[in-house]
């Protein structure tokens, strides 16, 4: 969306080729995504990557400028997604990192799904997408929201619990620069796409 030249290096998650010493050297937590800048500096954390790239390309209009009146709200919800919604989203796929045993893990799955629902519902109440979260233009917040929504637990029922957010998600996923990336990364969710899927 910002038109920056880049090269994509895929990290096959949950395979032996994932947590290799080479990958851990660029991101010691072993998570994706990791961005390597032209000068070799690495940036981890999806929210930081979104902010940095959007700020470096103000012409793309993906973030309210620092000091502008809309900036605090934008930062609030971007941090909400990354620091509050993402952790239980991730936890759902890594229950064994927190407790041992089937019973405890089933309980943790239940509380984790309940937490996801509560967090999405609180966000749903704070937005009136038109059609994007911040109005008639897409922003980095739409990307962060759509990505984490796609990762949220199926039984959290995101689209039913949060119709307004789901509509904003559909809007950003139909964006011509976004649709191909999403189709590749979230193939299971393709049937939900509002966009044109003729070339899928």
């Amino acid at each position, binding site marked *: 969306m910002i038109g920056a030249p880049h090269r994509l290096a895929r990290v096959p998650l949950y395979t032996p080729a994932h947590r290799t010493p080479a990958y851990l050297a660029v991101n010691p937590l072993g998570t994706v995504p990791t961005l390597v800048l032209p000068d070799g500096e690495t940036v981890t954390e999806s929210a930081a990557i979104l902010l940095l790239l959007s700020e470096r390309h103000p012409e793309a209009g993906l973030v309210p400028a620092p000091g502008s009146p809309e900036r605090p709200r934008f930062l609030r919800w971007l941090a909400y997604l990354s*620091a509050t919604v993402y952790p239980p989203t991730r*936890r759902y796929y890594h229950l064994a990192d927190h407790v041992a045993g089937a019973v405890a893990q089933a309980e943790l799955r239940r*509380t984790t799904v309940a937490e996801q629902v509560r967090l999405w519902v609180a966000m749903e109440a704070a937005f009136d997408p038109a059609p994007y979260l911040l109005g008639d233009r897409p922003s980095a917040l739409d990307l962060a929201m759509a990505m984490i929504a796609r990762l949220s637990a199926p039984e959290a029922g995101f689209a039913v619990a949060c119709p307004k957010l789901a509509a904003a998600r559909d809007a950003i996923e139909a964006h011509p620069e976004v649709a191909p990336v999403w189709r590749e990364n979230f193939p299971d969710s393709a049937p939900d796409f509002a966009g044109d899927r003729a070339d899928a």
Partner: protein
Amino acid sequence: MALLDLVGAPYRIVSIDINTPDHPTAELLAVNPLGQIPTIAMPGGRIVTESAAMMIAIAEDYPESGMAPATNAPERPAFLGWMVYLAANVYPAVRRYFFSGEIAESETARDEVRRMAMKELQRDWRVMEAAVDPAPYLLGRAPTALDLYTAMLSRWAVDQDWFRESCPKLAAARDRIEDDPKVATVWRENFLNFE
């Protein structure tokens, strides 16, 4: 609070005790649906929750304070990267450690959640320790909001002797920012393990 003092912003504090039976109060829920602190009302009544978001927003409103490197500054990638790293990794681990009962019911499961949270927290600190080169502040010669955020989070949950021994570079940077009398005053009020 310390950041508001450092940038010279006027403010009024509303103290909230999260350990009383009536927490979260209707007043807090009205501004923060999750009933969490910190929550701030910026000029114009704009409510900001999420500690990292409010620190970045405040720092950016006072560019001359240098508390947030400018968007075109060479320190900007590290600034954003570590602010989000702390908010999205360290803080959630601290939360799981203190509020294990929110996600686990049985006593055994709770203990385990706490133990794993502490393990993860220590790993998160070690990863940051290995990556930084304070000179003497985390991003170079001048302090930024990152120094405050790091110092604040490192005063929670982890054993302070462990932190100083395992993360000497972070601890040294922390000493520098905590030397500031404005920071020390706020810290003295908020952290029993300070001084």
